[in-house]
């Protein structure tokens, strides 16, 4: 049993294919509009046209795949009025569907949009780290789906050892929120064009997809 399960995302190799997102949707049978894992496209740069009609530019784009980070200080848990959200013995933050009253507090509070509101059922739900698969000794559906092997999971301290101290620091990459808000169990390897948190160099350009 894990104590502090965490995800690692490699922004330098992620191609934004969203296989993780669909594997999650299939595994969890998620209807339209409910995305337990979302892939943000962060892009920017500008174009300059010279007098001879040629162009120069500094365009960049990269992707960030985020599910639930099963935070050390989960914002969702703190605002849940019914006690539906708990962090279980394995360190996984779960929502008890029976207790959820559909108030959407967690949806508003989470800076990662992890809890997703199902209007038809009036319930919030989210990534549970595929705890059934973990119990079977298998990786979460998103991790075993990743075509470029950019997603990893494991015990937080093990991942830190595997990917280095830098990975922990690199959570400070746009468009991720400041990690001090919830202390996410998320480690990140930035790519060549990664921008720091709060950077105005780019923007999430696929709001309709996340």
């Amino acid at each position, binding site marked *: 049993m894990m104590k502090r399960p965490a995800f690692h995302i490699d922004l330098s190799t992620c191609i934004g*294919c969203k296989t993780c997102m669909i594997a999650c*949707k299939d595994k969890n049978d998620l209807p339209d509009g409910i995305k337990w894992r979302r892939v943000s496209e962060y892009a920017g740069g500008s174009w300059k046209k*010279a007098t001879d009609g040629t162009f120069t530019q500094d365009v960049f784009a990269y992707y960030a795949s985020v599910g639930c980070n099963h935070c050390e200080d989960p914002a969702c848990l703190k605002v849940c009025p019914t006690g539906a959200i708990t962090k279980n013995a394995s360190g996984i933050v779960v929502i008890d569907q029976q207790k959820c009253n559909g108030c959407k507090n967690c949806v508003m509070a989470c800076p990662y949009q992890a809890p997703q509101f199902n209007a038809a059922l009036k319930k919030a739900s989210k990534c549970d780290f595929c705890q059934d698969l973990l119990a079977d000794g298998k990786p979460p559906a998103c991790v075993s789906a990743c*075509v470029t092997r950019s997603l990893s999971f494991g015990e937080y301290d093990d991942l830190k050892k595997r990917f280095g101290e830098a990975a922990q620091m690199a959570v400070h990459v746009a468009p991720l929120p400041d990690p001090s808000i919830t202390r996410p169990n998320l480690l990140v390897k930035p790519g060549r064009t990664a921008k720091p948190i709060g950077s105005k160099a780019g923007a999430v350009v696929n709001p309709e997809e996340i």
Partner: protein
Amino acid sequence: MQKKSPQSIGVDRRTVLKWGTALGGLGMLGDGAGILSAVTPARAAAAGTKIITQSCMVNCGSRCVVKAHVVDGKIVRMSTDDSGNDEYGNHQIRACLRGRALRQRVYAPDRLKYPMIRTGVRGEGKFRRASWDEALDLIAGKLKDVKARYGNEAIYLHYATGQLGGTVSKSWPPGQSAIARLMNCFGGYLNHYNTYSTAQITTAMPYLYGAGFGQAIADMANSKLVVMFGNNPAATRMSGAGIVNDLVHVRQTSKFPLIVIDPFFTDTAALADEWIPIRPGTDGALCAAIAHVLITENKVDQAFLDKYSVGFDDAHLPEGIPANSSYKSYILGLGPDRQAKTPAWASKITAIPTERIVKLAHQIGDAKPCCISQGWGPQRHGNGEDTARAIAMLAILTGNVGIPGGGSGARESGYGLPLATLPVLTNPIKDSISFFLWTDAILRGQEMTATRDGVRGTDKLKAPIKFLWNYAGNALINQHSDVNKTAEILRDDKKCEMIVVIDNHMTASARFADVLLPGTTNFEENDFTVSSFVSEMAFVAFTQQAITPMFECRDVYTICADLAGRLGIGDKFTEGKTRDQWLQLILDKSREKIPGLPKTLDEAWAMGVYKAKNPGAPFVAYKAFRDNPDANKLATPSGKIEVFSKRLWDINKSWQLPKGERIPAIPEYTPDFDHHADPKAKKYPLQMVDFHYKQRTHSTWGNVPWVKEAAPQQLWINPIDAKTRKIRHGDPVKVFNEHGTSVTKAKVTERVMPGVVLLPQGAWYQRDGKKGDKGGCSNVLTTHRPSPLAKGNPQHSVLVQVARA
């Protein structure tokens, strides 16, 4: 999923109600409620779950492993290959997002359920339900009638790639399908050559190299620099065992700079060190300017050129060719056009600054070795044959051909396994048309000749197409150019008298059927599949039937066998074998070349996947020729690389080409059809590229909600072009030109260069008024005009205007 199923349009009310009931039975993939209220079926039913190895059989080329989790006869989940430790070389064949969304494709509300016969005008989508007997009798009767009146040359097997992976069920190449076997038993059919994917490069490369090989991706480990022209494996080769994974792996294990040249910042450009944006269709000008720098700065490998090629300079021209006809003369401005191909000249054409062109030339000239690679985007133009060769010239000039770390300048090759397929016998008819000119062959078949229309195998066609088979394809309307013109040609059922469509869903093409037959998906039948577009690890997947055929669906072998009986060729077609008996024969034949394969079908299903790592070094194109050019001549007339092709020189003189078209003997830059400086650009100022998009493989998955949600259809437009048109991100926009109008939503992004818009190809055509479409279908805007030599599809040579809808 709330939307009215396209199938319910134009059928009578009673039938709709019946379908409604049937759909209710499909269960869990219904509407927004999902099943979040309880545990997921995968969890609930874990104990009784059967896990069946299957594959994605469609035309991205990869054949990833998917595993159907079946409970009570229904697929409740789709996982992927999770075998072994995923070490490269024995890695997992992980499916991409589309493979993982296959459950929604199998259980789509618009699955074809029963045979149907057209009742309205062709293309209108009005059908009545028919029995299999009635439908097959009608087809058999018409086949005999057309054969009697026009001969077998009037029967055509249309290009179709919806089922690319199977051995018995494959739809492509059509000449290797069960339909081909049936028609060969019946006396043959009109062939076609080339594909919508690669017409221009497939035709051009043999004039240069005698073949079309490229280097394996894994060999980039030996490169000091890799330059990719219009190659985007992150979208076109997305398999977790495919080229993108090979590229990511080789990037991680060796350090070489990667430069991507493309009109848009692709997901592959995101993996690269640098992106150089270029105007679509102008790669040839960039390459000519790079050649100018290499030649004038003595950076060409003259010893290589002298030994291995003909036609680089005037000293090595074939006999009887006038002076100053060589490539070098052309580049230096000594040829007929008197234009030196300087970087300044190219900068105006390509929109790349002069100094960047010079720097790129230095980078390519100085990196030893350097790998030049191209995708299939640059060639899918009106000047694609010339562009494909022009890019390859960079590899030739620098002597990088046939060595590790180098390359031929073509697209990548890789390791493969020789899996057998269904024996289809021989087509007695040799007449063949370009895949792209089938609409011409319907309109004016008997007028089509070898020297005007590229007809092969005969000087002149004997008959127009009167009977058309369309098995598992959407190029009847959606994927062929100029949807409106195509629809007009097809609407007249006096011209092509019968169209038979076999498919899974009510596609845009299915609506143009006279007889519409519901086929099984690969989840409903036994078959095998073999890897393609991999670098170092190949595989065979044994794909077992996971669920019983849905509704009245039948597999293509059963359909053909039944028809064969009605045509009096039953024994000849089946040889007394069932589908599984053919599979056993295919397995036995394959095992002769791949000894590790299982012996019986039961052993095959139990094995699931057979993987094989390339025992040698990564593939180096034309290595034997480089090592010993006298013993291993190329398949060109001279046996060498033909920078100047005497064959093309002769073709240019003997073919009847439309005014303004040429087929240059050397890889010149020729202006594209509908290019940025064309007079037409005054009215339609934006170049449009219809690129490959993660939502779909061509048009497949165009009806699958999960992938449409993840990657919606959008027109990519630069903020500069959006601003002048008052278009904001998310706005509905219309894209239009003289061919038609398509409506979609705008994605305003710096990732596409100014002056260019991108419309992902393959979205399903939804007719809206006379020449309109509201589905974002790019082919409403493309032309029937073929490229000069290949007679191929210039589907990236498009000028459009865009406005808010």
